């Protein structure tokens, strides 16, 4: 028996990812700003959904309050920009501040379980919102414009915004990938499958969950920073809106919970539906809701779950594959055929518990 991470050489995966990132990075020279602007939105959603997926899909922590960190990230950029710091330079700061805020908050919300945790996180987000609308210098409930960027040539601003969004999305996916391949990834998989059992075999459940919660907050903070930069204004009621959680959940759910690929696919599907059907008004919203219900009922592993179970396809191999010695080659085609059997193990697909 032999255990590998993937059925293909991991090197090819890295090369492939690099090619995609480089190709995306050259886009502002190739396509017009309408495409890059759409991709900025897509990258923001990929980051948000991936961060939510990290919590729910791997950790069993259902949060409906990640918008708290979207807001913290956006307002961090605003405060720094008001003090003369370039908004793009402020993105890493937004990430760090969100992570720093998440540490004490985690001690509070981790006292709650399951549904109580979900509501608790939402309450935290509302508290952040209620506190921020009291600050007149940050626009209060009126909202305010992000200073400093409007005078930059729109073409350059659009391109730099795009590169920033690409960098954040790339970093978020890489961080997720590395986290899940680390020893902690194994802990998380164990927690996801059965928290009590994991605890009993010595997995440090709370610290693993806390680490993921902080990483997720950092990612959402960076997404919030991108939001304010792409919109050039911020309104507290919009940035702290529970709508962000709804979007994260929707995308992660239709794409496939518990896989890195799921939120990417889900974002693609969401953007495609939005671009083509948003003009239907209320029917568009009814359609989104029905789709979410349908997927949750009939495809609990999401669309990526369907694809990967049928095609045994993995773009980000984070699980382990067991190869039987009688297998002629680990690269052999279909499992369960010609004596070659590859068992996916703990590759982190499939629902909360």
């Amino acid at each position, binding site marked *: 028996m032999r255990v590998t991470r993937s059925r293909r050489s991991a090197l090819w995966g890295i090369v492939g990812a690099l090619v995609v990132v480089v190709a995306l990075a050259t886009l502002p020279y190739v396509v017009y700003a309408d495409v890059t602007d759409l991709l900025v939105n897509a990258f923001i959603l990929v980051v948000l959904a991936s961060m939510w997926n990290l919590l729910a899909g791997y950790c069993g922590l259902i949060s409906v309050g990640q918008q708290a960190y979207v807001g913290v990230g956006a307002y961090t950029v605003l405060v720094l920009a008001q003090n003369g710091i370039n908004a793009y330079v402020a993105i890493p700061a937004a990430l760090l501040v969100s992570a720093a805020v998440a540490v004490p908050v985690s001690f509070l919300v981790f006292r709650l379980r399951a549904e109580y945790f979900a509501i608790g996180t939402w309450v935290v987000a509302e508290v952040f919102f209620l506190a921020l609308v009291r600050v007149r210098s940050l626009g209060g409930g009126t909202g305010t414009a992000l200073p400093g960027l409007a005078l930059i040539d729109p073409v350059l601003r659009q391109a730099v915004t795009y590169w920033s969004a690409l960098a954040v999305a790339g970093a978020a996916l890489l961080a997720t990938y590395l986290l899940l391949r680390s020893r902690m990834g194994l802990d998380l998989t164990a927690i996801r499958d059965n928290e009590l059992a994991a605890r009993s075999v010595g997995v440090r459940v709370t610290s693993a969950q806390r680490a993921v919660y902080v990483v997720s907050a950092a990612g959402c903070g960076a997404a919030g920073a991108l939001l304010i930069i792409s919109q050039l204004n911020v309104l507290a009621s*919009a940035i702290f809106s529970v*709508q962000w959680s709804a979007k994260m959940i929707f995308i992660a759910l239709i794409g496939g919970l518990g896989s890195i690929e799921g939120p990417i696919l889900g974002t693609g599907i969401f953007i495609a539906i939005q671009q083509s059907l948003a003009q239907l008004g209320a029917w568009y919203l009814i359609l989104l809701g029905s789709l979410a219900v349908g997927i949750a009922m009939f495809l609990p592993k999401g669309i990526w779950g369907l694809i990967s179970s049928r095609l045994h396809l993995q773009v980000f191999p984070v699980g382990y594959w067991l190869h039987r010695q009688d297998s002629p080659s680990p690269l052999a085609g279909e499992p369960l055929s010609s004596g070659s059997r590859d068992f996916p193990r703990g590759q982190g697909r499939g629902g909360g518990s």
Partner: protein
Amino acid sequence: MADQGLSFERRVSRRQVLKTIGGGALMLGSADLLAACGGIKGSSTTSSGTIVIGYVSPQTGALAGFASGDNYVLDQVRATSTYKNGFKLGSKTYDVKIVVKDTQSSPDRASQVARDLILTDKADLILTSSTPETTNPVADACEANGIPCVSTIVPWEAWFFARGGKPGTSFNFTTMFFFGMQQFGECFIPMWDRMNTNKVVAFTYPNDADGNAFRDNKTGLEFYSAQAGYHNIDGGSYTDGTQDYSSMIANFKSKGATLFTNAPIPPDFNTMWKQAAQAGFKPKLATVAKVLLFPADTEAIGDLVNNVATDAWWTPYHPYTSTLTGQTCKQFADSFESATGKQWVQSIGSVHSLFEIAHKAFTAVDDPHNHTAVAAQLKSMNYTGISGPLDFTTGPVPGVAIQKPVGVQWKKGTKFPYSMVVVDNSANKNVPLNGDLVPTNP
């Protein structure tokens, strides 16, 4: 604070930015890379024979009442010969395409659809209406991308100051017509004066763009009220969506408030007004802003809406005619009612005027795709249409045209459950009265 898009300086060219900004160089790591940015493709330029006009409003969600008349107005505008046959600019005729986008009542979505219109649909002009949550993100996107934009149905203070505007400056590409706090004062205070009360006014303003504009004690309605000798009781800066107003109402009762005014989102007024009735807070006159503008709001509240006063900037009784169709306000409202089977809404006048303005601006330039020229036309616009005289040059700031609202009350109607009756025309004598001002709670 923000100096976004407010400079009178020439827009900084890409080359200048590339040469000068150190922050950018630091951020991107090397000057070489910056120099290479010369090859970035922006949005594709259009020199086509089609003028694209974007229209953004909240057609679904909490603010959908504001956009309830949009479809009719858009269909009618598209059917006018002016829009159907295209705009004639000099010797050339341009087709006109109107692209409509829904914000789902979300500021984020508003910003996104505005950028969609600019970058994908290559809009030459964007028109937007209804509440700062809609108009401000759209106008900000237009200002940042150098696309002309006209907003309406938003108090000018909530549109101008909330976007980082400073007195003595103006935006380069974005203009608006509606009215502001001074006009609310000119509309509401004469009605209060006629009520013969103890001059104690209960104010309930939420902590949002509109509410904060009303609350401002230097430029808000609170200022004009105090100037007119009224004693203001501010109920406090509550959050939109608040469900319990009992302590606020108790405070108004204990202070003996006999007049009531507010600027809430429509569902909140519903809650607050019902709780006030239950608690026995019966102000002699309620003059509300932002709610009860449309019949749909009145149905939700029922009989408690009887004789509540509000402002009206457009009614079928206004003596104005359309520059597009030649219809009078009365004919326009009648055609709306017969086509849709629904009661007229005052937003139809404003939305219609947006398209009057678009036509005027485009036919005054040589090249409709020259955004700077179109924006200059918008800022110097001065015409009279279905919304009455609109002068964008003499407003409180350049690019803002002021309308004069009249005081109206909701009274039991014959054709529809409640109808809007003009009861006070102190601010605009051109509009005839068609009813008496009656106390909300005698």
